[in-house]
């Protein structure tokens, strides 16, 4: 996949499509800026004028609650006009192609598209076919990437642990269908995590994952031993066509995160989940709602991180028109 289109000729970030190939400096810059946006959410007037007069279209060809909502809030706190389109219910069902939909919206002077689609590479495709002053953020494409989720996860880890360098991290569950896991792995590696483990049934761990420098295991105890951060993934039953997991009860018994299994991790281990959670399937309610869980902090942090990404790619756009 072509990642050069994320940067302009001067090396400035103009689209945010994948964290794969981005420098540590770029990622750290986004996280640092997000810290300042956190305080905006704590003010009397939770708005700054950076994107005043800009139009942001949330173009979601797949359902989403938290990602779409936090992008909407992020855009509004930056003073942009935000339009939400659940395209699955619109023109696409009438046979219009994605690019025709995007071109139509571009003709209405959209400045930034936030795109989610079930096809890998959809956001790249759109970015390639738009004029240079229009920006694109990937809000999840197929099994490929979900870079803003990975960034809010990195932000949350950094806030809780103070750093990412040197941490041991286990990513647990359905890695096969997970665009979140792919983006997390790239971000963790770039930001200097000491060890990344992929834990889950063999049927749900992609075979090529070890080429990314990730140690794969189907042994939950071994995978959890001594880790600082436990990143749970949602079991994506809607994407499974074959028999990839035996039964839900057996899956929970072996891979569901419970307080008992969590004892194998470091005593101060942090538990994360991108949501929506399947309680009693990949995680017990006791852990999800327990003191180690930062699942709701992840949602809150998503706003500041998405504001940071939007402001970073939209700044300085005028010169290129």
């Amino acid at each position, binding site marked *: 996949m072509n990642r050069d289109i994320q940067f302009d000729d001067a090396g400035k970030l103009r689209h945010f499509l994948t964290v794969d190939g981005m420098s540590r400096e770029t990622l750290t810059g986004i996280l640092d800026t997000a810290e*300042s946006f956190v305080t905006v959410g704590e003010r009397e007037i939770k708005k700054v004028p*950076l994107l005043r007069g800009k139009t942001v279209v949330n173009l979601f060809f797949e359902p989403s609650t938290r990602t779409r909502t936090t992008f909407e809030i992020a855009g509004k706190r930056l003073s942009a006009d935000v339009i939400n389109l659940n395209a699955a219910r619109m023109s696409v069902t009438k046979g219009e192609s994605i690019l025709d939909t995007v071109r139509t919206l571009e003709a209405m002077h959209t400045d930034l598209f936030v795109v989610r689609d079930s096809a890998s590479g959809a956001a790249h495709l759109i970015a390639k076919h738009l004029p240079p002053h229009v920006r694109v953020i990937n809000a999840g494409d197929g099994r490929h990437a979900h870079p803003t989720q990975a960034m809010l996860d990195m932000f949350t880890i950094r806030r809780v642990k103070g750093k990412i360098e040197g941490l041991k991290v286990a990513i647990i569950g359905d890695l096969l269908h997970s665009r979140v896991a792919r983006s997390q792995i790239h971000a963790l590696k770039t930001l200097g995590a000491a060890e990344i483990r992929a834990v889950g049934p063999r049927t749900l761990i992609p075979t090529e994952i070890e080429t990314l420098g990730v140690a794969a295991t189907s042994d939950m105890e071994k995978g959890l031993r001594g880790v600082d951060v436990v990143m749970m993934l949602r079991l994506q039953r809607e994407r499974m066509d074959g028999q990839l997991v035996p039964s839900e009860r057996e899956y929970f018994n072996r891979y569901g995160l419970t307080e008992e299994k969590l004892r194998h991790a470091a005593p101060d281990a942090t538990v994360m989940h991108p949501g929506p959670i399947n309680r009693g399937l990949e995680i017990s309610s006791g852990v999800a709602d327990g003191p180690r869980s930062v699942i709701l902090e992840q949602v809150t942090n998503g706003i500041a991180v998405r504001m940071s990404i939007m*402001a970073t790619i939209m700044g300085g756009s005028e010169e290129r028109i």
Partner: protein
Amino acid sequence: MHDAGRPADLIKNMAAQVAAQKLSKPVLIGIHSGGVWVAEQLRAGISPAPEFGTLDISFYRDDFSRVGLNPQVKASDLPPVDRRDIILVDDVLHTGRTIRAALNEIFSYGRPERICLAVLIERPGRELPIQPDVAGKSLALSANEEVKLSNDGGELSLDVVKI
């Protein structure tokens, strides 16, 4: 060349002018980075020592569309400003655009009773109708001259440079 003077003397001069403003329990707010340095030292000259805040106006700049976001942006940290008297402090008043942005940001936190503008150096080149209430010194710089404040471990110094 212009003699910008010693910042410590200018700040003493500013403190006397601030006293003449007859402010009631003011909040002292410095603008990052130079304004914060000046405000910290000015605070020592005001009795009783006022509440303190810092402002980073990066999110309110009017050149965001042209130059983008300052990568060094810091979080603003303000005490409650609603119905308070405020001394807004910056190092150099030049075009007035920084002050415009700072005023906008302060109003996102509440409605102050009164804002008084205190600067270390006031120079020509205004692009907005903004004037200081308190100025350490006025320097008649030309368009190709700039005055810079630097901070060496708390020791402030001023230099006039050609650009």
